[in-house]
C-alpha cells in the first residue's frame, strides 16, 4: 500500500508563479523531493518505458514527513452564540429526506441532523438519527443525557417533518417524525415524548447541521437532504409544526424565531443564509450538493434559477469532500527559463519495486507571456484535459461497482494506490461514483492526492496491455512528441476556461488528449472561436466534448457535472436536478444542448468496450487528393493493427462521423475501424429502442472514423475517433503507420499555408 502521497494546490502554474505541495507519509519519517519532467509514464516493458527527466530545482531535498488526515463529510457550521440554546423552551424542526438511515452489512452509526451539542460534556441539544435509523432528540444538563426516540425507523427517500421540542416548564422533550408520504405516515405515530427532563445546560460549541462538533472538526455526519431548518425560543405544540414550513411565517411564530435558514438563497455559494432576526449564517464545508429539489417541489419548474423556493434542500453526504487542507511541505516558484510542459514532483520514502514508496504529483507549467530565452514559442499546444482528470479523480468503480469486471471482460487489477484508496474512502470520490447512499457524486476537486492521475499508474479501464487511462495514457503523446523532436507548450482546461480563446490564440495547432470528455461553456466557446480564426485541431482521442461542466464561482480546483437525460452514465441525476448549482446552466450531454461533439471535432461518441482494441481499414476517401498529405508514405490498407493499448489503435471508446449530428458535409472519413468484440456496445444516447444487435460484431455504429476536414478560415480538423490511437504511436521504434499519419498531419497543420475548403 502507498506509503507517501501528495498533491499540489494547482495543476497549472506559469513562470514566476508559486505552487505549494502537500505531503503525507504513513508515519513520521523523512522523504526526498525533486522535480522531474514527465515524458512517458507507461511502465509496460513492451513499450519505450517510463521516462522521467530529473530537473534540478530549488525544492530538491529532504523533508520531514508525517501523516496528515483528511476529514470528509459535508456539514454546516454556525459560530457559537448563547442564544442558540434558548432557556425558556426550544423547538427545532426541519424537513428531511434521509438517504441512508441504516448502514448495510450490520455497521452502525449515529447521524447528527441539527444541534448545539457537546458529546463529551453532555450539554446542549441535538436532533439526530440513531443507530437503528430512528429520529432521536436529546438534551443534556451536564450530567445526564435525556433522549426520546421515534418508535419507527425513518423511511429512505421519503420526506419527513422532523422536530425536537424541549418544554422546561413541563419537564418534557418530544421528538416528532411526521412522514409526508401517507403510506409511511400510516405506519406509526408521529410524535413521542418523555417527562422528568431537567433544564438544558448550554454547550459552548458551534451550532451544526448534518454533523456535530468534535473538537475543531466534525463527527456523526448525516446522509440525506435537509430543507428549511428552523430554531425557535419556545416549546411549540406539535400541531403547530406544519406552520413552520409556510412562508411567510405567522407573526406570532416569527416573533419566536431564533434562526431560520433558507438554503435557496445564493445556491452557487457556500454560505447558508439565516433569514431570521439574528442573521446567524452558516458556512458549508466539503461541498454538500445544492440546487436539490426540496420537500415542496411540484415539478412545475425544473430550473432552480426560476423557482429557487422549490430548491430549498441541501443534500449532505458523509463522504462529501472538497479540500484536504494539509499543511504545505514546500512551495516552488517556477523559474522563468523552464519550458512549458508536463512536470511532476517526485516524492519518495524508498524505492520498493511495486512503487508503493513513491508518489509523483503532476503539475503543468504554462508558457509565460515572455518567451523562454533561446526558445521560440512553439506552434503546437497540448490542451491537457485536466477537467477529465478531475472527473475521474480517485475513481472507485473498480473498488465498489458490481459490474466493473464484466465491463472490462477480465479480472480487475489493483495497484498499491488502489489498495490505499480502498482503505481510505475519505480521499473522496470521482464524478463516476455514487455516494454511499446511492446518490451520484456531482462535484470533484483536485485538492487531494488524486492517485489515478499519475505517471506509472495503470487504470482498470485501459484495455489489455499497458492499461492506461486519462493522464498516463496522454503521456504516450508526450513521449511521441519528444521522439519526433516537436516542441510544444501545454495549456490546461482550467486555463482555457479562465482565459478563453486567448489561452490558445498563440498556437497554430492544438493537440487534444486521448479522452477530453468534459468542457465548460467557456471552454467550448473558446475552442470554436479559435477554430473560426484558422486554428487547427488534432483530436487524438474519443468521447470528447461530451459532458457540460461548471467551474465554481468562488472555489478553485473543483468542477460540477449533472448526469442529466442520457449518455454513458454511472449514475443518473434525479428528476428536477439537471441544472448546475455552480452556474445555473442546464447540465448533461453537450449533445442535448444541441451541440454534438461532431460540431467541434467532426466525430462524436458512438460505442465503447474495454477488452481488446482493433484496427482501421482505409476508405476510398483516403485516396482523395485532399488527403494525400495525410497518407504520404503509407501504403497499407490496414492502419494501427498494433499498439500498447489493447493491441490496436482503434478501441476503448469510439467516435464516428455523422452529418445529422453536425459533421461537416465535406468531411472525409479516411478510415473506419472494424472487428470489435462483443464487449463493445453502442452508447445509450443512440439507443431509443433496445435491440439485440448493438454489439461490436453486429452494429455498424461500433466503429471509429478517422476523419479530416478543412474549415472556412484556412484551418482544419483531424480526428482519430479512438482513445487507443496514441498507444500505437511508439510501436516499432515510432516507425509505423499511426505514427506516420500523425506526423504527416501535424507537420502540415504547423505549416502556415491556409487550407482551402473544397468547392
Amino acid at each position, binding site marked *: 500500500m502507498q506509503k507517501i502521497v501528495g498533491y499540489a494546490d494547482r495543476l497549472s502554474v506559469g513562470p514566476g508563479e508559486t505552487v505549494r505541495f502537500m505531503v503525507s507519509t504513513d508515519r513520521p519519517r523523512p522523504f526526498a523531493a525533486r522535480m522531474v519532467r514527465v515524458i512517458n509514464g507507461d*511502465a*509496460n*516493458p513492451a513499450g519505450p518505458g517510463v521516462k522521467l527527466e530529473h530537473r534540478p530545482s530549488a525544492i530538491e531535498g529532504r523533508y520531514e514527513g508525517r501523516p496528515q488526515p483528511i476529514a470528509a463529510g459535508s456539514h454546516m457550521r454556525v459560530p457559537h452564540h448563547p442564544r442558540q440554546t434558548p432557556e425558556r423552551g426550544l423547538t427545532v424542526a426541519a424537513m428531511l429526506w434521509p438517504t441512508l438511515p441504516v448502514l*448495510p*452489512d450490520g455497521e452502525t452509526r449515529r447521524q447528527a441532523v441539527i444541534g448545539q451539542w457537546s458529546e463529551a460534556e453532555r450539554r446542549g441539544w441535538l436532533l439526530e438519527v440513531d443507530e437503528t435509523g430512528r429520529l432521536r432528540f436529546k438534551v443534556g444538563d451536564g450530567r445526564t443525557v435525556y433522549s426520546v426516540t421515534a418508535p419507527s425507523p425513518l423511511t429512505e427517500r421519503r420526506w419527513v417533518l422532523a422536530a425536537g421540542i424541549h418544554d422546561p416548564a413541563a419537564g418534557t422533550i418530544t421528538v416528532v417524525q411526521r412522514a409526508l408520504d401517507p403510506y409511511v405516515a400510516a405506519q406509526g405515530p408521529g410524535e413521542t415524548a418523555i417527562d422528568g427532563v431537567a433544564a438544558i445546560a448550554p454547550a459552548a460549541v458551534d451550532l451544526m447541521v448534518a454533523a456535530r462538533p468534535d473538537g475543531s472538526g466534525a463527527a456523526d455526519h448525516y446522509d440525506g437532504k435537509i430543507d428549511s431548518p428552523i430554531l425557535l425560543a419556545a416549546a411549540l405544540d406539535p400541531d403547530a409544526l406544519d406552520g413552520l414550513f409556510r412562508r411567510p411565517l405567522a407573526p406570532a411564530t416569527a416573533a419566536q424565531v431564533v434562526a431560520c435558514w433558507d438554503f435557496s438563497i445564493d445556491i452557487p455559494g457556500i454560505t447558508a443564509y439565516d433569514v431570521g432576526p439574528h442573521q446567524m449564517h452558516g458556512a458549508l464545508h466539503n461541498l454538500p450538493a445544492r440546487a436539490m429539489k426540496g420537500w415542496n417541489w411540484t415539478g412545475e419548474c425544473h430550473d432552480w434559477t426560476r423557482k429557487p423556493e422549490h430548491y430549498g434542500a441541501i443534500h449532505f453526504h458523509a463522504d462529501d469532500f472538497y479540500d484536504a487542507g494539509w499543511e504545505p511541505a514546500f512551495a516552488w516558484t517556477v523559474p522563468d527559463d523552464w519550458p512549458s510542459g508536463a512536470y511532476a514532483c517526485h516524492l519518495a520514502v524508498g524505492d520498493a*519495486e*511495486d*512503487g508503493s514508496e513513491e508518489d509523483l504529483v503532476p503539475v503543468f507549467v504554462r508558457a509565460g507571456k515572455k518567451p523562454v530565452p533561446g526558445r521560440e514559442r512553439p506552434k503546437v499546444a497540448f490542451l491537457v484535459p485536466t477537467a477529465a482528470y478531475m472527473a475521474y479523480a480517485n475513481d472507485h468503480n*473498480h*473498488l*465498489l*461497482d*458490481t459490474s*466493473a*469486471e*464484466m465491463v472490462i*471482460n*477480465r*479480472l*480487475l*487489477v*489493483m*495497484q*498499491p494506490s488502489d*489498495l490505499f484508496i*480502498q*482503505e481510505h*474512502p475519505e480521499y473522496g470520490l470521482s464524478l463516476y461514483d455514487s455516494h*454511499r447512499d446511492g446518490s451520484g457524486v456531482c462535484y470533484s476537486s483536485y485538492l487531494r492526492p488524486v492517485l489515478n492521475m499519475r505517471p*506509472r499508474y*495503470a487504470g482498470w479501464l485501459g484495455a*489489455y496491455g499497458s492499461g492506461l487511462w486519462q493522464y498516463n495514457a496522454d503521456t504516450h503523446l508526450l513521449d511521441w512528441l519528444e521522439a519526433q523532436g516537436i516542441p510544444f507548450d501545454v495549456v490546461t482546461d482550467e486555463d482555457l476556461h479562465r482565459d478563453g480563446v486567448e489561452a490558445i490564440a498563440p498556437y497554430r495547432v492544438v493537440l487534444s488528449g486521448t479522452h477530453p470528455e468534459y468542457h465548460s461553456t467557456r471552454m467550448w466557446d473558446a475552442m470554436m472561436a479559435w477554430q473560426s480564426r484558422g486554428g487547427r485541431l488534432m483530436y487524438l482521442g474519443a468521447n470528447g466534448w461530451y459532458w457540460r461542466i461548471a467551474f465554481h464561482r468562488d472555489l478553485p480546483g473543483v468542477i460540477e457535472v449533472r448526469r442529466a437525460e442520457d449518455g454513458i452514465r454511472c449514475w443518473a441525476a434525479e428528476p428536477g436536478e439537471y441544472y448546475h448549482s455552480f452556474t445555473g446552466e442546464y447540465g448533461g450531454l453537450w449533445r442535448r444542448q444541441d451541440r454534438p461533439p461532431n460540431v467541434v471535432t467532426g466525430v462524436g461518441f458512438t460505442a465503447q468496450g474495454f*477488452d*481488446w482494441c482493433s484496427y482501421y481499414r482505409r476508405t476510398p476517401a483516403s485516396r482523395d487528393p485532399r488527403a494525400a498529405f495525410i497518407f504520404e508514405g503509407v501504403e497499407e490498407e490496414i492502419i494501427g493493427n498494433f499498439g500498447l493499448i489493447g493491441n490496436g489503435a482503434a478501441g476503448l471508446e469510439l467516435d464516428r462521423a455523422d452529418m445529422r449530428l453536425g459533421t461537416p458535409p465535406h468531411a472525409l472519413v479516411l478510415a473506419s475501424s472494424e472487428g470489435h*468484440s*462483443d*464487449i463493445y456496445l453502442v452508447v445509450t444516447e443512440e439507443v431509443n429502442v433496445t435491440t439485440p444487435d448493438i454489439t461490436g460484431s453486429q452494429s455498424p455504429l461500433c466503429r471509429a472514423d478517422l476523419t479530416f476536414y478543412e474549415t472556412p478560415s484556412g484551418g482544419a480538423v483531424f480526428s482519430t475517433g479512438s482513445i487507443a490511437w496514441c498507444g500505437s504511436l511508439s510501436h516499432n521504434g515510432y516507425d509505423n503507420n499511426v505514427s506516420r499519419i500523425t506526423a504527416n498531419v501535424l507537420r502540415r497543420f504547423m505549416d502556415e499555408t491556409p487550407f482551402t475548403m473544397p468547392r
Partner: protein
Amino acid sequence: MPYKISQWDRQWIDEMRQNPLGPHSPNLQRVLNTLRAGPAKGRYVLVTRKPFAEWVLAVHQGYGKPFRILEDQVFTDRAEAEWHVFKLRWKAHTGEDIN
C-alpha cells in the same frame, strides 16, 4: 432471469482453457458474465506485486476494508490467473471441479 449454468455449458470450458483472455464465443461469454455477476464484496481481484510481471490473487472484503491477499496464489501470467479464477468460480457455482 439470470442465466443458470448447466451441464450443457461444459462444452465451452476448453475454449476458456485455450484462450482465457478472449475475445470469447457468445456461449462462453454468457457463462463468464454469469460467473462475474454479483457484489464487489467477495470478488476475486489481482493485486500487482511487480508491474507487468507478477500478481497475487486477493478477495474484496467490503467497503473500506483491506483486500484479503491469498499469498499462495501468485501468477506471472494474466491468462493463467484468468483460468485459475474461472475454475474457482465454476466450482462455486456448480459444485464441480474442472480438471
